């Protein structure tokens, strides 16, 4: 893995002419094989989504909100912790336990006071910062974007997110200068961003649930898993959509064929 990356980086260095290495030059995201790649048959692997959620929770969530998602979404059909025994995710034990890890501000109570309580599946994922200003103040002026739609909101989609996670090993071009708290990543527009490399060896130790194979949390594995999770989060009904679409397409094609024969029949004895 590392060897191929060094090789890739070397190839990029060889190919990049001086003009191309200028500031603002953005690399095309690396292509990658996903279980959800196919627009018709692609699906999500629940184990992958569970690991991806763990990476989000232990790494990304420190700075990035997931504001469009509720905790219950994790246990809904197609989600990482979906269990057919619990069609209502509010009853799903795993989801309830995850929810209980969060402290939610609620209220006001009957005395007009706000209070804190443990989360329930119906709660939204709490934001790491109370507002955008607080987020900027903690991150050197940069605003860590909400990740609920990140894969849909970037032209490069999942490939872009994964490449960005792993894109810190490139040599700084001469004409790019970094201020403290800035990092170089050629997959990012402009090449300079305030987020440092996050997915380093040993950052996450994957939980292995019953019946799951043990997976080592290498940077590539974490980037793959968290991107799969964020792709699901951007479009949680994707699998349901594709599956419905397949049935609708089969129906439409049969309908189309029947109408074609009806048309031939009606016009059979007519020259036109």
């Amino acid at each position: 893995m590392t060897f191929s990356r060094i090789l890739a980086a070397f190839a990029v260095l060889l190919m990049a002419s001086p003009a191309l290495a200028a500031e603002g030059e953005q690399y095309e995201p690396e292509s990658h094989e996903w279980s959800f790649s196919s627009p018709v048959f692609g699906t999500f692997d629940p184990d992958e989504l569970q690991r991806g959620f763990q990476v989000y929770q232990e790494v990304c969530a420190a700075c990035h909100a997931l504001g469009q998602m509720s905790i219950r979404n994790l246990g809904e059909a197609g989600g990482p912790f979906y269990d057919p025994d619990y069609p209502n995710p509010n009853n799903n034990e795993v989801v309830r336990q995850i929810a209980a890890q969060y402290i939610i501000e609620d209220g006001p109570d009957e005395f007009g006071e706000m209070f804190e309580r443990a989360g329930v599946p119906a709660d939204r994922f709490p934001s790491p910062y109370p507002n955008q200003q607080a987020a900027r103040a903690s991150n050197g002026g940069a605003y860590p974007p909400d990740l609920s739609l990140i894969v849909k909101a970037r032209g490069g989609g999942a490939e872009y997110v994964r490449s960005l996670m792993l894109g810190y090993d490139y040599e700084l071009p001469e004409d790019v200068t970094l201020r403290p708290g800035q990092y170089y990543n050629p997959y990012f527009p402009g090449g300079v961003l305030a987020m440092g490399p996050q997915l380093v060896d040993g950052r996450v130790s994957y939980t292995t649930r019953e019946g799951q194979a043990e997976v080592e949390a290498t940077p590539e594995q974490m980037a793959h898993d968290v991107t799969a999770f964020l792709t699901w989060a951007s479009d949680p009904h994707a699998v349901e959509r594709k599956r419905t679409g397949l049935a609708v397409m089969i129906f439409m094609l049969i309908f189309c064929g029947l109408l074609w024969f009806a048309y031939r029949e009606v016009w059979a004895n007519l020259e036109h």
Partner: protein
Amino acid sequence: MSGPSTYEPKTGFTRWLDSRLPIVRLGWDSFVDFPTPRNLNYWWTFGGVLAIFLVLQIITGVVLAMHYVPHVDYAFDSVQRIIRDVPFGWLLQSLHANGASFFFIAVYIHMFRGLYYGSYKAPRELLWILGVVIYLLMMATGFLGYTLPWGQMSFWGATVITNLFGAIPVIGQSFTEWLWGGFSVGGATLNRFFSLHYLLPFVIAGVVGLHIWALHVPGNGNPTGLDVKTKNDTLPFHPYYTVKDGFAIVAFLTIFVGFVFFYPNALGHADNSIPADALVTPSHIVPEWYYLPFYAILRAITFDIGPIDAKLGGVIAMFGSIGILFILPWLDTSPVRSMRYRPIARWFFLIFVVACLALGWCGAKNPDDIIIAMGSDAEGHATGFTVLTFAQILTAYYFAYFLVILPVLGFTEKPKKRPASIEASVLGDKAVQPAE
């Protein structure tokens, strides 16, 4: 073409109704017994496709409006709520957003068909003009609707387009502020855009009624451009065209649902999944694809023309490119309707279609992008044939097609021999020769 009605009410109730409100008779005469040229090809099926899409957009739109919140703080989240939490909301949203795109695909095919077969010529001038009115209303409705999700492209697209009105001399600024309901695109703008986006489809439906009325007076044109002369030239609309249109509509819908289910975001823009932010301008603001040719024309005017500055010139050119369609029936001087029998015009038409597609391509590009590199300037920047130059050439052709080519060709072109009748074009020698 509306001859004597052949409707005969058969029951007591329909006789009672027919003598008071002959609505069944109207439907019968318009869609069952309506005499339709027997030689219509598949290009004639898009009128039916468009009617279906208007209904689809209204139905999905009405349901979406039950869940949508037209407020700057909630609009974006409410669309996400529709997609994520409303039962089958993801389907409604995808149908409506992709429905708009396919509505425009169908209307462009319908319009190019009209241009090729001379459907705008007498006695169908008003029919054509009503069609252009519908198209303008569709453009307005599409633009208003694209603002509603309140993403980055929604906001900045609305800002760019509404700012165009600022180019109007003297009243430009105050007119634009009146449109906005403030000093920039904001809460008041979103609210009124929602209101108008809900209103205009019903106005479209009304004009579509007039369009069909105006169609049913002279009847359909046809690929030969010849008038209907005898009963042998026509077939009753039902079952011949109900089944042919039905097949074409379902075939078109099949492609449509392919996008709805498998590529729901292919025709959208990633930036619109970022909530609107007045402080962050996207690096490259592009309108929806169906406006791109006009956006390219707008940006092609980069020079002052006498007292008209470049911005106003661009706005005039953009609106003029659609406005010119209103007078097209009087610009085309050829007495021959169908370009099937116009050997020179059909080539210019083909170039016109390519020019429109190429303008769309230019609209999506940065005007300074270089298509063919030719050396570099003193500072080392590459120079060459830019998107802007290309768009200017195409814009010139667009207007020349209507203002020079069609008026002149009518006098200079020698049309090919046309068949004696519609029937003869279909049956050849087997046709019963109409009595001279």
